[in-house]
């Protein structure tokens, strides 16, 4: 029995060795792109997906979107999807990374075999990718949130940062930006604010987020503000405030959030604005950049990149700059951040439908 098995394996080996390694010639319009979000089924990434598919349609390329449902995502699975795209010899792999180090080797192997590797939304070790499509400059988010928070209350109080998880590279970058902004003005404009040392991690599960925020609020009755860097953090803060009997607005929230999901909080005044960008455009840009790199329209060393989005509407009458900035470490910036409120939240693109927010 085992002998039969091994004979069969050897046969397959022999056949395979003859069948393998055929070089393929690439046609500009035969481009196949594999795109991996952190997870699926959630407002933010649904918007990204819709934007990516629009770009695929506009540019005539194929995009395969592959991810796990929220709550079941793992870096190991992301690695498996990357490996599959490598096996199928896709032209580019675009990934929003769950963690920055785990599968760096796999990505490097992809690059070595001639595949374009881009990260978007969440970066990996810069050595393991060609470019990172970043939604906005980290410093921009940091100062916007910090000054927003400082303006929301004037008496002394504590603030806490609620992030998603300790290995989320974009959240960590924003936290660093917030802290930098704080350090710069902590004796002047921000002197009434003290940061709680610990960073609270909400995870990707609403129940855990609720518990975590409830805990920190219970332990710190003089908490005045929450930096909600995870989409779970805002509802968790609202709930904890209610559960602990606080007045609306007693604990202010400076948040990143998807506007449509935060409508209730915006309406009640608990969180008048949420800071974000257009994930739809982020998805679009990532695909756009990949295609332009593969067809040679963009080369290494350029410091600017004009995509199909440049100069067009970002939201309402505000337009994107004429070209995207490319930083030294390979980041391509989508544009400045957007403050969404009751007056413009319907202009958020890509969620709940593929045509939402599009004029």
């Amino acid at each position, binding site marked *: 029995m085992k002998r039969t098995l091994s004979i069969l394996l050897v046969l397959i080996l022999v056949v395979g060795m003859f069948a393998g390694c055929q070089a393929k010639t690439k046609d500009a319009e035969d481009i196949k792109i594999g795109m991996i979000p952190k997870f699926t*089924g*959630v407002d933010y990434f649904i918007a990204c997906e819709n934007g990516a598919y629009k770009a695929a349609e506009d540019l005539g390329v194929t995009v395969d979107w592959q991810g796990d449902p*929220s*709550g079941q995502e793992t870096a190991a699975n992301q690695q498996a999807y990357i490996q599959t795209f490598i096996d199928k010899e896709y032209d580019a792999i675009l990934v929003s990374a769950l963690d920055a180090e785990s599968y760096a080797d796999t990505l490097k192997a992809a690059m070595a075999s001639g595949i374009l590797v881009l990260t978007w939304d969440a970066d990996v070790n810069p050595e393991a990718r060609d470019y990172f499509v970043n939604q906005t400059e980290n410093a921009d988010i940091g100062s916007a949130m910090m000054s927003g928070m400082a303006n929301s209350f004037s008496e002394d109080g504590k603030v806490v940062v609620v992030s998603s998880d300790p290995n989320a590279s974009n959240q960590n970058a924003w936290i660093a930006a917030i802290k930098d902004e704080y350090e710069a003005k902590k004796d002047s404009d921000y002197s009434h604010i003290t940061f709680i040392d610990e960073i609270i991690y909400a995870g990707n599960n*609403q129940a855990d987020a609720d518990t975590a925020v409830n805990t920190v609020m219970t332990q710190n009755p003089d908490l005045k503000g929450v930096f909600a860097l995870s989409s779970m953090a805002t509802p968790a803060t609202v709930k904890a405030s209610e*559960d602990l009997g606080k007045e609306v607005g007693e604990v202010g929230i400076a948040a990143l959030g998807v506007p449509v*999901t935060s409508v209730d909080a915006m309406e009640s005044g608990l969180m008048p604005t949420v800071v974000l960008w257009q994930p739809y455009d982020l998805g679009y840009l990532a695909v756009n950049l990949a295609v332009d790199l593969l067809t040679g329209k963009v080369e290494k060393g350029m410091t600017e990149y004009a995509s199909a989005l440049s100069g067009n509407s970002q939201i309402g009458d505000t337009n994107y700059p004429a070209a995207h900035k490319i930083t030294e470490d390979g980041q391509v910036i989508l544009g400045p951040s957007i403050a969404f409120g009751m007056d413009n939240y319907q202009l958020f693109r890509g969620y709940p439908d593929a045509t939402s927010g599009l004029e």
Partner: protein
Amino acid sequence: MAIYKKSIVSRIFSRENVLGLIVLAFFIVLSIFTNFNTDAGLTSYFKEAAYLLMASAALTLIIITGNIDISAGTLMGMCGYAAAYVAKLGAPFYLFIPVAILTGVIFAGINGIIVTKFKVPSLVATLAMVNVHLGIYTLLPSGGWVENLQENFTDLGGTVYFGFIPLILIISIIVFIGIMFFMKYSPFIKKVYAVGGNKDAAVLVGVNPDKVVMITFLIEGLLIGLASIFFYTTKHIVQANSTFGMEMTFITAVVVGGTSIAGGSGKIMGTAFGVLLLAMIKRAMIFFQLQDYYSYAVQGIIIIVAVLITFVEFGGKKKDNVSFEAIKEDKVNG
């Protein structure tokens, strides 16, 4: 046969009484050292106890029959999603609560069929069903999420009397007392214990074990459906997979309460104390600033200790002796 004639001393120090004392002690300690005794602290605690009572009661019955249900957690998520989905469409409580219960009964019933009709051991059957449930979540609209729930749903969880007694706890206690009466007076329950203790002997005295186990699963479904309501109406967002792994807590409460995992014995009152204690331990860890990930280790240790105690208590007797003596000595009472 004289083993089970208990002396006055051992009656006073019965497991349930000891547990009750421990719970009381914990309560006092926590009230002194933390802000547990405030409205806010008590409310959170009671809200947690509400759903744990229902779910652990459900599992108590299952375990008494000598089975187990590892899919209880994901099952609760399914019920919660169904209820929330209907509520989002505007349904009032007298509609979405039956929806949750119906979902629970259906899916627990599926487990029951696999175990009784197809004779698959409940451990592996329900272990596999966990993955099937998770797979179903991904097929659900919005991947098992329902957002922005309105008052028709959240009021139920949010209503609190006297500042610290949540409505859901009151309902939960009422149902639980109902279960206790049921267990004391229903002839069905004696069959449940018999099946768990010694199935072959039960058959010989005319019990149909398949029917008994099947009905037990259906009851479990009902209770889990209720539990899901108590759990989810305290939230604004329902995520079906947020209950993944919760069955560990339910089982811990059951085992701590004195129910033997081998089946055939156990008191529902014990489970109640187990629930109170576990919920308190959870709160205590939060207040003493231990992070949530200690809870896994603690739960594991608790189960081991509790089971060891049960083992020592019964002196290693085989389970068949236990059940018949238990029924004789009226240990069946809830």
